[in-house]
């Protein structure tokens, strides 16, 4: 299976749970699991090739100009992690099915889980660091959703926010670090970067890049001082904790350090930063874990501690240590996920996970006890379980590392690890059965313990036969980390001369002693002051949030004028700076003569514009003046060699005025004068400056020749030969730039649909609907609602207008016209019927579904474009030919005309849908709908009757 598909499968799978939850929880879980299983099988099929040492790659060029390509590759390390993510993911899906209560929205849970899974798989399979960063951020976002899954719990929300802040912040640092690496090497491909160790380590930018990348890794993997978010993230449902916070997400940082190990490791900087952070985290977190009473908190700190252990091993920078790190990643994932799930079972059954309220569960929950004990002993490092093997190897490596403080601290860390592991088992399961559990516990059904049991079996199998069950994977993964062949020799007995044996014995002995002293130590611990990470975090975040709030309130005044004014002022100021700081000479292009007719048009336009400014409070009058301006603009277009624009402008003008009139019917007819004089003055200055700037700029432009050769000549030269039309503007629209036009009509269709949706929303019960139902018009209706002359004239004109529309459409390719204009013309012809004969009368005779028109238009345009594929040419390549039918002159058929038909239908549908939506509002406002075409207002009829009665 292609790697890109493996990475994409979880994302595709994320769509399913939301849909399938309607079919029940079992169906939902089964389908989610099947998708994961499919991806897992796809991955497993690659195992033989990976073990042979082949690197499997999939490459999809995405944005090659930016160096961003969807390239994936799979080696031993990727295989190990992807296997963990998908394998444990599958178990978690099973476990969550039984863990989530019927009240929890399960579809949502699985969707988030699959998003997370996809992001994680993406990280470990990416061969492009930019792509990797995208997935990295996606894990932060999806884990935010998962941690905050129980939205009603404040701890959940706070924990989610904290996790997002810390890991998201680290992610930002990492982006910077990765970009630096990419710049040093000159490629964003991971496989290329990994081959440039010397170059990277010699660069002056090595240390900044290292620190930034480690920030990303440490925050994600909860290394000191960023460890504090992980315990708070435990507010998440237990399946999330087991998946994200033991097996996968927190290992993303580890993965990254392992991935970059070949180029970053081996320097003193790497050794000191990574080793000390890991070592300190390991000891500190192990100590805290020993004192935690909440099962999940204990496991959380234990996870932090074990991550520290792995980090430390990677920090050593030796091949042997890296091998142990890889082995411990496998072991930790197995026993820790099993422990989390067991803790979840205890919580689920006993309704508490407070160790101090538990004990004696051995008799009540024998299955859970067995699983937790196997996993817990492995965590403590007791033979023959797998945790023992990797811990021995870790101690062995530490013992060979100078200075002496490293092995000493490693032993202390191991000692605490023994202590809290035993405490977990002893204080939860051993001891006498109590009678004060919040809920009488018993073992859950098979479905719930199956997943942890399977992991426990793995713990035992790897522990007993490491060479059979793990060594091959360790070899492959460690080989990928170190870039050299690795032959791991994992054994239980290293001989009496091995320092690890004695260190291990010291740790177990000391740990047992510590457990015996737990009561006394706990009292000291509780009495002594401890830094509370959450308080420190809040103390840092709160002022920032306050600052952001202040800024937002200052900037978001809620007054549109402020925003637009600021934008105008900024644009004008920047333009003025550019203008006054440059040098310029007057333009040299010969000016056109001013003909009298042009001067008259100009006068009308200027007068109308000034009048709009002066009289804008009288809204109806303003509309008339805007009509004048639009008319002069259209005539101007015609005068200045743009017949298509003139036709479009004038028909749009008609539609706009009708639209505004319809709206004005319901809006106040006058604008009150309410701006203070100071504000008017300010606005006038801004407006004047803006107008001057725009006018000056276009004048400067028009009085100069083109600075560069225009691309007009290309269009003029190829319009006829390539596009088959002589109207170059139309050919550009439907052919050269057809893709743009396609986007354009889509937007138009969306706009019309939006108008329809807004109307629907207004007409639902609500304040707007109530207002419409109680509407009292503020101006009297016309007595003669549908003047006879107009009715007759429009009906006579309809066929002619339609024919003109078709004519304009057909001729558009060669002379002014085309789909846009034809659509507008036909729309106006139809609207005229509504205006003259009334809505009901017209709607009854004109049964056109405007939505359908829009949809058909866009689809026809798209289908025309897609049709090119069948001819083996790119999307929207046009074709045309000349045909001859007897009795007719030779005529031309072009696919572009079909495309133009799509444009026509969309424009027609959009204009009609917009206008008819407004009409529906009028009907709701109680405006009497005429049934007859020539009716007069009912009130007038009564008045006439009364008059006659006199």
């Amino acid at each position, binding site marked *: 299976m292609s790697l890109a598909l493996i990475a994409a499968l979880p994302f595709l799978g994320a769509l399913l749970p939301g849909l399938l939850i309607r079919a029940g929880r079992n169906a939902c879980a089964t389908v989610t699991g099947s998708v994961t299983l499919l991806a897992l099988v796809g991955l497993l099929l690659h195992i033989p090739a990976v073990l042979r040492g082949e690197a499997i790659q999939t490459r999809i060029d995405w944005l090659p100009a930016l160096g961003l390509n969807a390239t994936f590759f799979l080696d031993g390390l990727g295989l190990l992690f992807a296997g963990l993510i998908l394998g444990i993911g599958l178990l978690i899906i099973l476990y969550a099915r039984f863990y989530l209560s019927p009240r929890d929205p399960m579809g949502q849970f699985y969707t988030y889980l699959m998003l997370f899974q996809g992001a994680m798989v993406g990280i470990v399979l990416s061969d492009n660091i930019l792509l990797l960063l995208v997935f990295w951020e996606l894990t932060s976002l999806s884990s935010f959703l998962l941690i905050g899954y129980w939205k009603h719990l404040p701890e959940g929300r706070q924990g989610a926010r904290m996790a997002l802040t810390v890991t998201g912040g680290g992610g930002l640092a990492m982006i910077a670090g990765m970009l630096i690496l990419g710049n040093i090497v000159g490629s964003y491909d991971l496989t290329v970067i990994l081959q440039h160790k010397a170059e990277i380590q010699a660069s002056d930018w090595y240390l900044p890049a290292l620190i930034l990348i480690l920030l990303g890794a440490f925050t994600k993997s909860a290394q000191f001082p960023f460890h504090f978010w992980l315990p708070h993230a435990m507010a998440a449902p237990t399946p999330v904790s087991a998946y994200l916070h033991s097996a996968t997400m927190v290992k993303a940082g580890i993965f990254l350090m392992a991935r970059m190990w070949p180029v970053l490791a081996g320097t003193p900087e790497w050794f000191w930063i990574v080793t000390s952070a890991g070592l300190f985290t390991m000891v500190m977190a192990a100590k805290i874990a020993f004192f935690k009473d909440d099962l999940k908190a204990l496991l959380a700190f234990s996870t932090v501690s074990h991550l520290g252990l792995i980090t430390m091993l990677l920090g050593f920078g030796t091949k042997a240590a890296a091998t142990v790190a890889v082995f411990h990643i496998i072991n930790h994932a197995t026993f820790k996920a099993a422990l989390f799930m067991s803790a979840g079972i205890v919580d689920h059954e006993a309704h508490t996970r407070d160790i101090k309220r538990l004990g004696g569960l051995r008799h009540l929950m024998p299955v859970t006890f067995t699983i937790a004990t196997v996993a817990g002993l492995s965590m403590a490092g007791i033979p023959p379980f797998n945790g023992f093997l990797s811990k021995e190897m870790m101690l062995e490596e530490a013992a060979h590392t100078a200075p002496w403080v490293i092995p000493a601290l490693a032993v202390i860390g191991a000692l605490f690890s023994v202590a809290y592991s035993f405490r977990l088992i002893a204080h939860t399961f051993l001891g006498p059965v109590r009678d004060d559990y919040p809920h009488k516990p018993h073992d859950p059904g098979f479905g719930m313990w199956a997943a942890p049991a399977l992991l426990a079996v793995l713990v035992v199998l790897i522990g007993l036969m490491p060479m059979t069950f793990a060594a091959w994977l360790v070899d492959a993964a460690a080989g990928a980390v170190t870039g050299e062949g690795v032959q791991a020799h994992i054994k239980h007995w290293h001989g009496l001369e091995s320092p690890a044996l004695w260190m291990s014995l010291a740790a177990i002995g000391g740990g047992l002693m510590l457990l015996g002293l737990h009561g006394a130590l706990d009292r000291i611990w509780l009495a002594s002051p401890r830094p509370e990470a959450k308080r420190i975090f809040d103390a840092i975040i709160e002022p920032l949030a306050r600052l952001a709030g202040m800024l937002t309130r200052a900037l978001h005044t*809620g007054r*549109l*004028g402020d925003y*637009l004014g600021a934008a105008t002022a900024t644009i004008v100021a920047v333009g003025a700076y550019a203008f006054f700081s440059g040098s310029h000479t007057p333009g040299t292009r010969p*000016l*056109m003569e001013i003909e009298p007719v042009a*001067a008259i048009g100009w006068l009308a*336009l*200027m007068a109308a514009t*000034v009048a*709009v*400014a002066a009289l*804008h409070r009288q809204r109806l009058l*303003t509309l008339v003046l805007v009509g004048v*301006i639009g008319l002069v603009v259209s005539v101007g277009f015609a005068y*200045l*060699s*743009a*017949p298509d*624009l003139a036709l*479009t*402008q004038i028909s*749009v003008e008609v539609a*706009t005025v009708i*639209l*505004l009139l319809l*709206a004005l019917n*319901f809006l106040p007819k006058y*604008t009150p004068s309410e701006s203070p004089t100071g504000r008017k003055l300010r606005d006038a200055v*801004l*407006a004047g400056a*803006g*107008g001057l700037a*725009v*006018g000056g700029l276009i*004048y400067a432009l*028009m009085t100069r020749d*083109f600075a560069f050769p225009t*691309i*007009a000549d290309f*269009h*003029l030269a190829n*319009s006829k030969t390539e596009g088959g039309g002589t109207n170059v503007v139309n050919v*550009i*629209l439907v052919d050269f730039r057809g893709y743009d*036009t396609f986007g*354009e009509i889509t937007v*138009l269709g969306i*706009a*019309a649909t939006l108008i329809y949706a*807004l*109307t629907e*929303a*207004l007409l639902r019960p609500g*304040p707007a609907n109530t*207002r419409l139902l109680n509407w009292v018009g503020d101006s009297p209706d016309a007595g003669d609602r549908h003047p006879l002359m107009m009715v007759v004239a429009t009906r006579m004109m309809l066929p002619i207008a339609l024919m003109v529309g078709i004519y304009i459409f057909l001729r558009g390719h*060669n002379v002014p016209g085309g789909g846009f204009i034809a659509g*507008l013309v036909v729309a106006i012809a139809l609207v005229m019927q509504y205006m003259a004969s009334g809505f009901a009368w017209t709607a009854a005779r004109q049964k056109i579904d405007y939505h359908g028109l829009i949809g058909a238009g866009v689809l026809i345009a798209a289908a025309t474009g897609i049709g090119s594929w069948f001819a083996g040419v790119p999307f929207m390549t046009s074709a045309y030919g000349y045909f001859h039918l007897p009795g007719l002159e030779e005529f031309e058929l072009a696919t572009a005309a079909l495309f133009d038909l799509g444009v026509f239908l969309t424009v027609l549908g959009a204009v009609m849908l917009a206008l008819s939506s*407004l009409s529906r*509002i009028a009907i709701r406002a109680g405006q009497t709908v005429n049934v007859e075409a020539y009716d007069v207002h009912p009130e007038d009829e009564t008045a006439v009757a009364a008059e006659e009665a006199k």
Partner: protein
Amino acid sequence: MEILVASAVGLMTAVGIYLILRLRSFPVIVGLALLSYACNAFIFASGRIVTGLPPILSKTAAGYTDPLPQALVLTAIVISFGMTAVIVMMALGAFLESGDDRIDLAEDDK
């Protein structure tokens, strides 16, 4: 002729800006309409203005004006109609919902 086009574009821009800075929805809509005219005319004029040279190919034509700005402006005119229709609808909806056509947020809505 250039000065006429430039001054008209400048004036329409100025009045458009003034109107979009008003406090009620209707003047803002009209202001946007004026700005649309000005922008369209601006883009059109950036292809330089000539008379009598429409971009319709023929054997007798003395020359052609730049067709590209015209194509851009043509779709812009139609789209600006669509956008005007949307904001008119939004303004109407806001007025019907609240009984008021102010565009600024009321103090208690912030």
